[in-house]
């Protein structure tokens, strides 16, 4: 019996290996998407935000705005013309541009100056840059307020001198500063190194693309049913239980092979700490593969045709990936949607993987997610096998 199960599982791998384009797609794409999402979201590894700044005033004060923006390590500031900055935002080359209008310096001295920004409403970068610009405005307003009072009280004291004197109090550090520090369970990791910024996207796309492999495998069952080979297999000395076990084992083997490649590439190419807690990662990923294999088998049992299956597969996968936090970290969704994530296999996989990879937790962190996934696998596989038709 075992030999037959292995032979059927091996067949699944062979079928996949005969389609090099499919293999490339299942391996290369998650890697490419990890790069794209990692570079877009990951704080530590993403490129600096290109920030066009228009200085139409060329005064001491406008130069200070530019200088303070340039001090932000996450910005790549470039002084450009108004036309270029406007076009850059309109063309979505950047989320925000800063404009310092003509007369800004005089307006600072009269106490009514304005820094203008032009932003894309959908840009997350714009919000981050705006906060920095707002901070600069607070600092400069303080200097201007001091200089205004002083220059009125002591006419001999020039506004600019009083301003610069007050502004110097922000250097080298403001009176009260804030520093963010990423906390990890360094006593376990021992090196105190922060998890790579690609961690979320690497884990997310591994979780996401595993669904394509399992749905592809379950689709092959459907294809065999449509071609009548499943029926033919049943006239051999192979019973249904062996057949199903072999098919499921084949899907699990293929998914495991994909996980191995993706995690090794994630570690070597993107610095994601895959493998630091091998047992915990293996446990959660194995349970997840079982769960989504069950889901794929269930869907293949419920639908009537390959057309229906191929329509439903990508949408179920994409929907679950969105709900479970594969695309974006669950910390930005509402508490209700965080609860919804806990009803999905992708959600539990991401919870477990985030604990292990980003938070450096061990086996204990994946116990609950693994159990939930096993429960999900038991229900979906049980239902799927029961409903699966061979003819």
């Amino acid at each position: 019996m075992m030999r037959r199960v292995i032979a059927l599982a091996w067949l699944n791998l062979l079928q996949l290996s005969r389609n090099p384009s499919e293999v490339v797609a299942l391996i290369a794409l998650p890697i490419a998407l990890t790069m794209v999402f990692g570079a877009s979201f990951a704080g530590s590894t993403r490129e600096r935000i290109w920030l066009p700044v228009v200085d139409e005033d060329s005064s001491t004060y406008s130069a200070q705005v530019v200088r303070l923006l340039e001090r932000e390590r996450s910005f790549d500031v470039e002084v450009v013309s108004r036309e270029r900055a406007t076009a850059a935002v309109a063309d979505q080359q950047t989320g925000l541009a800063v404009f310092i209008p003509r007369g800004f310096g005089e307006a600072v001295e009269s106490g009514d100056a304005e820094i203008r920004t032009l932003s894309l409403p959908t840009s997350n970068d714009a919000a981050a840059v705006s906060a920095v610009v707002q901070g600069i405005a607070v600092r400069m307003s303080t200097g201007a307020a001091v200089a205004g009072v002083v220059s009125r009280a002591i006419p001999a004291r020039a506004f600019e001198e009083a301003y610069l004197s007050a502004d110097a109090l922000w250097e080298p550090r403001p009176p009260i500063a804030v520093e963010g520090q990423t906390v990890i369970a360094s006593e376990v990791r021992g090196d105190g190194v922060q998890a790579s910024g690609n961690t979320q996207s690497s884990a997310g796309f591994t979780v996401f693309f595993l669904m394509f492999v399992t749905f592809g495998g379950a689709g092959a069952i459907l294809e065999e049913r449509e071609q009548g080979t499943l029926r033919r297999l049943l006239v051999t000395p192979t019973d249904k239980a062996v057949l199903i076990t072999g098919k499921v084992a084949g899907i699990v083997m293929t998914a495991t092979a994909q996980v191995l490649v993706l995690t090794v590439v994630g570690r070597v190419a993107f610095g994601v700490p895959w493998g630091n807690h091998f047992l915990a990662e293996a446990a959660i990923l194995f349970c997840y593969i079982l769960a989504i294999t069950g889901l794929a088998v269930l869907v293949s049992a419920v639908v009537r045709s390959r057309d229906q299956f191929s329509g439903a597969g990508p949408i179920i996968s994409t929907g679950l990936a969105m709900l479970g936090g594969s695309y974006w970290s669950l910390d930005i969704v509402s508490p209700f949607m965080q609860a919804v994530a806990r009803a999905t296999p992708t959600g539990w996989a991401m919870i477990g993987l985030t604990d292990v990879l980003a938070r450096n937790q061990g086996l204990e962190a994946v116990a609950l997610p693994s159990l939930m996934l096993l429960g999900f696998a038991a229900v979906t596989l049980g239902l799927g096998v029961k409903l699966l038709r061979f003819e």
Partner: protein
Amino acid sequence: MRLLLTIARKDFTLLLRDKAAVLVLIAMPLALVFILGSALGNLESGDFGIKVAIVNEDAGEVGGYIVEGLVQAEQIEDLFDIAVLDDAAEARRDVERGDLVAALVIPGDTSARVGARRPVTLEVLQDPGSPLGSGVWVGVVKAAVSYASSDLVLGQALAAELSGDAVAPGAPPSAPPSTGLPERTGIRVTNAEAETERSVSMISYFSAAMTAMFLLFGSMFGAFAFVKERREQTLARMLASPANRIQIVGGKGLGILFIGIAQFVVLVAGTTVLFRVDWGESMPAILLLGATGALAATGLAMTLAALGKTERAIGGIAPALIMLFAATGGSMIPVDQLPGWLKPLQVISPTYWTLDGFLDVMQGSTFVDIAPKAGAVALIAVLLYAFGMWRLSYE
């Protein structure tokens, strides 16, 4: 032409007979937009409830002011669920486990250092598993504290200037710093959204993005139909009929185009009714973009049918290609956030041009304005179609 239309009608009728497949094609993308709207709807309402904490170890007044300012700030009450804790070690453990997204720790010597006019640094412990939420909390704390710094600088500088003396180290601050989020009006920051007649909300953006992406998923059905007919030899049999290859492939393409347009109409109508998405005032422009997007799906179906010998192979290649087009085109992340090295590659993504066109129309562009973008999609469609025709095996 009659042959071409007959083949197209045949494919379309075959699909219509499979009611469940029609439901999947039409209802599932709508379900996905619904999921997306539910998942990201809070980005607009600001209702996050991000769990953060403040640990005030400062025995003096300044720490208390900072806590009070943050806890009572109305602007952030929906954004954060703020707990005030006593024990920094406990807060650190909670952050490590991900039970807290971030925790602000106000050191015990904060008031003493402020009184001595020595800089003090507050620490925000951030959960590495919640980079976005913890980053937002750092930003809010920085903003609040910059106002406190502003008050301190104001007091020190005025005292020094008006008394004519340098500020003596160790002298107490003239007034406790404020830590709410008041306006500083000397220099204002005013923001204008990109020069458009209307702004695009997050749900509108992702509705357009998902529509542009799902138009391409229609290509899978077309490619499957090809493979099935090739396997069952009906393609070869059709070649023996008076229909030539162009008529056969064209007719099948037309069938896919019909499906794509039907999907598109349902998605636009559904998002308008369900999420009140404003697709702009130029419906002809939106329809043109939808039609060229569906045309791109048709071309992609030909390419897929040429590349994949079996349904299984297409099932692997198609989602991969479509996701890549979608990711580079801005369907998953707004285009301005994509890395710079990727942007030159966007020109080959039909999703990029379609989405860009949708957003333009939403922001007030007309049929003429977006015609070049629709033309770019049509060109990609033709290239994909030509490649498919070139490489397609009929037997």
